[in-house]
């Protein structure tokens, strides 16, 4: 099954990076371990968005909702019920995917900006309900001090958990992108009319992609809970969705690993710029401005193009 999908050469340095990440907690200060954990969960979120944005061409304006819903589901199950932890972990992505399915059924027949607008309103509805339902969701305060099994409650524990889950999800997403499903999805992105004319049920295809993407966003939400041990309504507010969009754009949304890079950059910026100034949003906004004006294909996209032009070989498939 893997033959011909992952070339041995690229596998080499991917393994190397993984090895480095595995031993890192023993060599760097705990704060950086925390930051890295955050990067993993955010990267997963960004990658899940790009599945429908970069590969699917959908104007997914409020992807953050599924992240938040996944997180809140776990949080509520772990604090309000005495069900075992792993059930909460599984429930998070499933609830997110169900919500994705419902929203998809409503939105997927729409095109472009209308899709984004309806999603924005549905997502805001979810946010408003969670924000106001103080008794159940903690409202503005959120939920804190979520109990986790001892293996995960340490910083290193949550780090490795996040790393492994993220890595697995990335591999699965890669397989999906390289499968007939992924190829057809990209074709739908490029030309939905043509796709329908060759027999593809465009609506159903997009719906499946959406459910997959929202499932992974839900997984990201679960990881968030294991790293932060708390949830708050901001996770559902569209400002976060905007940030995730920026991550994809920053990294390069026509590349596979671009969103990961974008997530890393944004989280690092937020953390380290935030130490020196409270105006980190200004920096983010300025970065986005420069990006749009000068580097619309994103950092990784830029390098990929340079690499393609440099080597005169025929362009490989992304």
């Amino acid at each position, binding site marked *: 099954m893997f033959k011909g999908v992952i070339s041995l050469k690229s596998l080499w340095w991917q393994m190397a990076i993984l090895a480095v990440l595995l031993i890192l907690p023993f060599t760097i200060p705990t704060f950086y371990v925390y930051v890295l954990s955050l990067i993993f969960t955010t990267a997963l979120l960004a990658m899940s968005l790009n599945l429908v944005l970069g590969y699917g061409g959908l104007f997914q304006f409020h992807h953050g909702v599924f992240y938040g819903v996944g997180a809140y589901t776990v949080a509520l199950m772990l604090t309000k019920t005495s069900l075992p932890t792993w059930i909460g972990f599984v429930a998070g992505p499933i609830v997110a995917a169900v919500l994705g399915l419902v929203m998809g059924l409503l939105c997927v027949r729409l095109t472009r900006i209308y899709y984004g607008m309806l999603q924005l309103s549905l997502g805001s509805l979810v946010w*408003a309900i969670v924000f106001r339902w103080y008794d159940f969701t903690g409202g503005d305060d959120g939920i804190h001090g979520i109990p986790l099994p001892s293996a995960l409650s340490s910083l290193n524990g949550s780090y490795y958990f996040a790393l492994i889950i993220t890595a697995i999800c990335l591999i699965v997403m890669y397989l999906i992108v390289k499968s007939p499903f992924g190829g057809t999805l990209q074709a739908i992105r490029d030309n939905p009319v043509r796709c329908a004319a060759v027999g593809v049920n465009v609506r159903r295809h997009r719906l499946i992609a959406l459910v997959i993407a929202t499932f992974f966003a839900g997984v990201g939400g679960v990881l968030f809970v294991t790293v932060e041990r708390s949830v708050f309504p901001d996770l559902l507010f569209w400002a976060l969705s905007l940030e995730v969009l920026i991550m994809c754009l920053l990294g390069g949304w026509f590349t596979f690993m671009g969103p990961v890079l974008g997530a890393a950059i944004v989280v690092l910026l937020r953390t380290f710029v935030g130490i020196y100034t409270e*105006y980190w949003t*200004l920096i983010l*906004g300025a970065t986005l401005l420069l990006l749009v004006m000068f580097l619309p294909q994103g950092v990784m996209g830029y390098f990929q193009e340079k690499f393609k032009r440099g080597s005169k070989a025929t362009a490989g498939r992304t």
Partner: protein
Amino acid sequence: MDFLPDIGLATLGSQFLVGLSRAMILFIVTAGLSLVLGVLKIPNAAHGSLYMIGAFIAYTVATFIGGATGFWLALILAPLVVALVSLIIERGLLRHLYEREHLMLLLFTFALLLVFGDLVKLTWGAEFRSVSPPGIFSGSFLVFGLPFPRYNLFLLIMGVVVGVGLWLLINKTKIGKISRAAAVDREMVSALGINVSWVLAIVFIIGGWLAGLGGALIAPTVNIALGMDHTILIEAFLIVTIGGLGNMWGALLGSLIFGLTHCFGVLLWPQFAIVFPYIAVVIVLIIRPTGLLRPTAW
């Protein structure tokens, strides 16, 4: 849970008027957004920032000068300053990007939203501000036997004035006709020898002016705070979508729906009042995804 308390006709009527006055502010702001959307084809996320800047500037002017003069001066100056900011944005940055993909333009305006948000924080700090309405507007008079703030009546009047003014501008002036033509076919207008670039700039500035006016008008009734930009932006985007992108009457209709459902929500279920408008939006978009009224060629 305070659900469905005793509601009399008087309460309904009074709340209806409050909702109406709230809708007027939404209309003023949303009309600006819709105008820019219809003619320039850009959903301007920075519109929220312009609104917030209008409110903060109104605060500064009103507080600095004080009294009724301060208020009126604020009402005049704030929109003008915001219009100036819009001019700078359009001429300096935006007009170089018109040829880009829509998603890029949208993201660009989002970037402006982020930048301006922090610039406002830099200039005014993070605390709440407030402005009191001038003497003649303080207090309320009785409508249906219940108090109705005088300032809300002023808002109602302003809404009508702005609405009529906009209608006249769009339908009876030369610039209005040119703008409507440019909304449909920009190249054609250019081919007729008209400087389309300046038409777009003027429309953008008017949109900004409206946002600034909305901010200045709402200043006496709310806490002027950071985050105003995000809240109004989402509301305006949704209103514009349910009304029909680029449609002025749609902006009015959408604002009415939004404002009134919110106020009746306050009556029916105060804790979840803000949910009601969102539900209304969802229902409208499910039944009519392209909005209630015809969009202007999107």
